[in-house]
């Protein structure tokens, strides 16, 4: 077990190194004088240019610059944002709970709706419901989610006036400390009347938009995995010994059908982060995706560099955890290559 853990952890090291190399090279490829790109000033005097060139280590050989970069990253130094003068890591950690909260509710929606919908379709295979679900899910994963978000804003928020257009909470009516960064939790702890409900209202549309593609994928996956399981001997045995159909499907079949679904959920973290960039942009949701796009507009390359690195680290980390959990659940993965 320990050997498997160590091997799996060791496998991520080359990926990390390559990731550092990628972001290191990327910022060097930005057109323009490297000093001006990094300091964010144009047409500096030669003395100032030389000063920063030395300060940033740009007068060193390239291989040494890379080693310096890796060294700094290993010590948690992801650089300083040009526009806010804050540490990139600090800025990321302040904004990340917003993205995490949004992703959590999106996945919650996708699982809570997708799993029962897919399981029901498998049981009623070939029927009207099954066909309708398959069609809807095809729409779901063909959907340009940025447009879907605009449509929802247009109908639900503007026409019907049901839900807020943007942001995480109504800032005019509510203000409280945010020790956790998760608006729903902070609102609950603030004991301001209605704050929690308002935070939830702000979450509905973004969570629907971000959850649409995973919902479609999970529904399809549950359906096909359920279809396979329903033909297994143990399901036939459960039926034959006279268990209620609800129990056969809900306990014996669904529980086994969920394993591949859990894999899909683990794998969708990368897709969630990509979707969060679009969703946060549409709803002005102050998370890391919005921040990343914003930093491009401000030509804040250190923030962009650190942001890409940190978001990818999250993805690699989650995938690693999923793999390790699998090793615990399923010995075949641990021992196989």
């Amino acid at each position: 077990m320990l050997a498997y853990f160590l091997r799996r952890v060791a496998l991520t090291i080359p990926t990390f190194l390559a990731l550092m190399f990628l972001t290191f090279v990327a910022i060097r490829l930005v057109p323009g004088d490297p000093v001006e790109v990094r300091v964010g000033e144009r047409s500096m005097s030669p003395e100032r240019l030389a000063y920063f060139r030395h300060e940033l280590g740009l007068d060193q050989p390239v291989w040494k610059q890379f080693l310096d970069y890796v060294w700094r990253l290993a010590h948690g130094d992801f650089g300083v944002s040009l526009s806010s003068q804050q540490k990139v890591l600090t800025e990321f950690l302040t904004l990340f709970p917003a993205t995490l909260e949004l992703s959590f509710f999106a996945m919650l929606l996708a699982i809570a709706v997708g799993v029962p919908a897919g399981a029901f379709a498998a049981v009623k295979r070939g029927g009207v419901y099954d066909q309708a679900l398959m069609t809807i899910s095809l729409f779901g994963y063909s959907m340009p989610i940025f447009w879907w978000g605009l449509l929802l804003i247009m109908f639900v928020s503007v026409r019907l006036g049901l839900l807020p257009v943007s942001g995480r909470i109504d800032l005019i009516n509510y203000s409280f400390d945010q020790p956790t960064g998760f608006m729903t939790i902070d609102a609950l702890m603030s004991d301001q009347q209605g704050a929690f409900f308002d935070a939830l209202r702000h979450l509905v549309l973004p969570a629907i938009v971000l959850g649409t593609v995973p919902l479609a994928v999970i529904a399809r996956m549950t359906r096909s995995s359920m279809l396979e399981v329903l033909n297994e001997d143990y399901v036939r045995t459960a039926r034959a010994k006279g268990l209620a159909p609800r129990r056969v499907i809900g306990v014996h079949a669904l529980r086994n059908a969920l394993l591949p679904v859990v894999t899909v959920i683990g794998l969708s973290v990368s897709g969630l982060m990509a979707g969060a960039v679009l969703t946060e942009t549409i709803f002005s949701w102050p998370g890391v995706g919005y921040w990343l796009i914003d930093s491009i507009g401000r030509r804040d390359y250190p923030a962009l560099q650190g942001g890409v690195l940190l978001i990818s680290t999250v993805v690699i980390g989650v995938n690693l955890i999923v793999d390790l959990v699998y090793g615990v659940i399923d010995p075949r993965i641990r021992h196989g290559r």
Partner: protein
Amino acid sequence: MAADAAALTTPIGEDATAVLAQPSPLASFWAAFRENRGAVFGLAVFGLVVMLALAANVVAPHSPIEQFRDAVRAPPVWEVGGSWRFVLGTDGDGHDMLSRLIFGARVSLFIGLSVMCVSFVIGVTLGLAAAMTGPILDVAITRLMDLILAVPSLVLAVLVVAVLGPSLANTIIAVTIVYLPQYVRLTRASALGELSKDYVTAARVAGVGPFRLAYSTVLPNCLAPLIVQAALGVSSAILEAAGLGFLGLGAQPPTPEWGTMLADSREFIRSDPWIVTLPGLAILVTVLAINLTGDGLRDALDPKMRRG
């Protein structure tokens, strides 16, 4: 017995003589593909989009970049104040929506198809190289693909565009990089599966060179899943490119790219909903048509993966 024989030779609705002779691969593929009505419908819609794209110069009533100063944000024909001059209305700069949507099909299909072709060719080459040339290259290629997969698709595309600058060409480069690993992994996995088979050993013994072994012995037997991947890859590429366009990092205005058209549409949500609705609808219809076709391709090419 006689009844059995008759049943074997005359399937429903087919000419008996055509079945006795071995049907050509294309004919048997088409017969299987045709079973899936959704796929045929998808293919028809996709065909229509392709025709519109090709004939854009003839079909479009106006130039996609001409600004009609006298008719800014004109409503579509079915709304109050709409006219047949601008059937689907005009946008915030007075561009004719219909013409932009038609020319947009050209841009989106160009992006989708070129991303697919380039990543297919490079991906297959890298995948075959990884599977067949020994462990060093294999590890190097596999790790590189792991890296690309570790960065969320749109984040990687955003990084590439932020560095290279936003343009149509750089969109294609960025999206190609993002979708490369899928082809590499698929090719590598199926090539590894084929390499242990007898016909490959036979070809090796017969003295077939490595290049020919890779491309004309092994590759044709790996093609089925790759073709499905390529079809679905076109729709993913279109979506990804439109996403970049929406973020203002794709094709730049006045290029009539569907995602770019949506980028500034937010301000018209209250007043002029057609400016927001139509470009997204075009993306959805195109992507849906390609995905339907792709599903049909999978069912027809790979009987194992046929859905229940």
